[in-house]
């Protein structure tokens, strides 16, 4: 039974990965990656990593992919990136590189003389990978890594807001910075552009 589930999940994982790379429309790429992540969660369950599988589905397939969806929908109108084809030589070189990387990784990981790899794994106990065990480890042995991860998330959230904020927005005198005036960008925007930016920024502040 485990074999059947493994092969189904592995096929979903690899097909999702191929779809992510090969589909022309970024929107479909994101959908293929969601399939890939769901298959990967099944593999994690087979490896007795319940908490990782749940976090994978909730955090990745749920939150992060929705973020991707919104950005693809926001940026998606750009047809030039879709239309421009990649040259055949680059494709062949990339495939060659990927194949070489595959062979090298196989030699490194599977060719190594780690005896346990041919078995189903050792030292399995009943609570392996459950939320209780993961939580206990995170709050005892790996407390520093846990706290650092939370600080990293905070920094990334603030950084993303700073990066994606509206730069030189409307024509309001109060909103223009000196740098914008020096660059001379404030006078060159068309009404349509201003409308788009106002829409992106939400209703005007009073």
């Amino acid at each position, binding site marked *: 039974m485990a074999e059947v589930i493994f092969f189904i999940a*592995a096929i979903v*994982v*690899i097909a999702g*990965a*191929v779809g*992510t*790379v090969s589909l022309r429309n*970024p929107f479909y*790429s994101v959908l293929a*990656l969601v399939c890939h*992540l769901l298959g*990967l969660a099944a*593999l994690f369950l087979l*490896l007795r*990593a319940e*908490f*990782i599988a749940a*976090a*994978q589905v909730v*955090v*990745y397939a749920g939150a*992060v992919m929705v*973020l991707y969806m919104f950005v693809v929908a926001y*940026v998606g109108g*750009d047809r030039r*990136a*879709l239309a421009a084809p*990649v040259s055949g030589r*680059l*494709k062949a*070189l990339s*495939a060659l*590189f*990927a*194949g070489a*990387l595959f062979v090298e990784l*196989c030699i490194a990981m*599977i060719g190594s003389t*780690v005896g*346990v*790899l*041919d078995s*189903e*794994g*050792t*030292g399995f106990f009943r609570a392996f*990978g459950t939320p209780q065990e*993961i939580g206990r*480890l995170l709050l005892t*042995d*790996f407390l520093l*890594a846990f706290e650092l*991860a939370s600080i990293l*998330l905070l920094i*990334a959230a603030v*950084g*993303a807001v700073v*990066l*994606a904020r509206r*730069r030189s927005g409307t024509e309001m005198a109060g909103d223009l910075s000196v740098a914008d005036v020096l660059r001379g960008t404030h006078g060159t925007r068309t009404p349509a552009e201003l409308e788009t930016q106002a829409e992106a920024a939400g209703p005007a502040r009073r």
Partner: protein
Amino acid sequence: MSITWYLVVSTIVFAIGAGGVLVRRNPLVILLCIELMLNAANLSLVAFARAHGNQDGQIFALIVMVVAACEVAVGLGLIVALFRQRLPIDVDELRELQG
């Protein structure tokens, strides 16, 4: 199922992701390919954790997921900033650091 099968799947996915980073020109898709590679690394970490009966590898995989989420947030912020500046969303044309 022997652990080697999981490692083979992980290796295949990693190679696909690395090839995708080289082939594609849309930064959104390149971010997705980086996600593929991080997930392949996660799968091998969890597989090794299972092989040795030690849960530390699973904690490692969780931290990798946190770092991947941070990378996605910052990368998507950069893409939105590019879009606002009316720059082309194409890595071959973005050669200058000065926006």
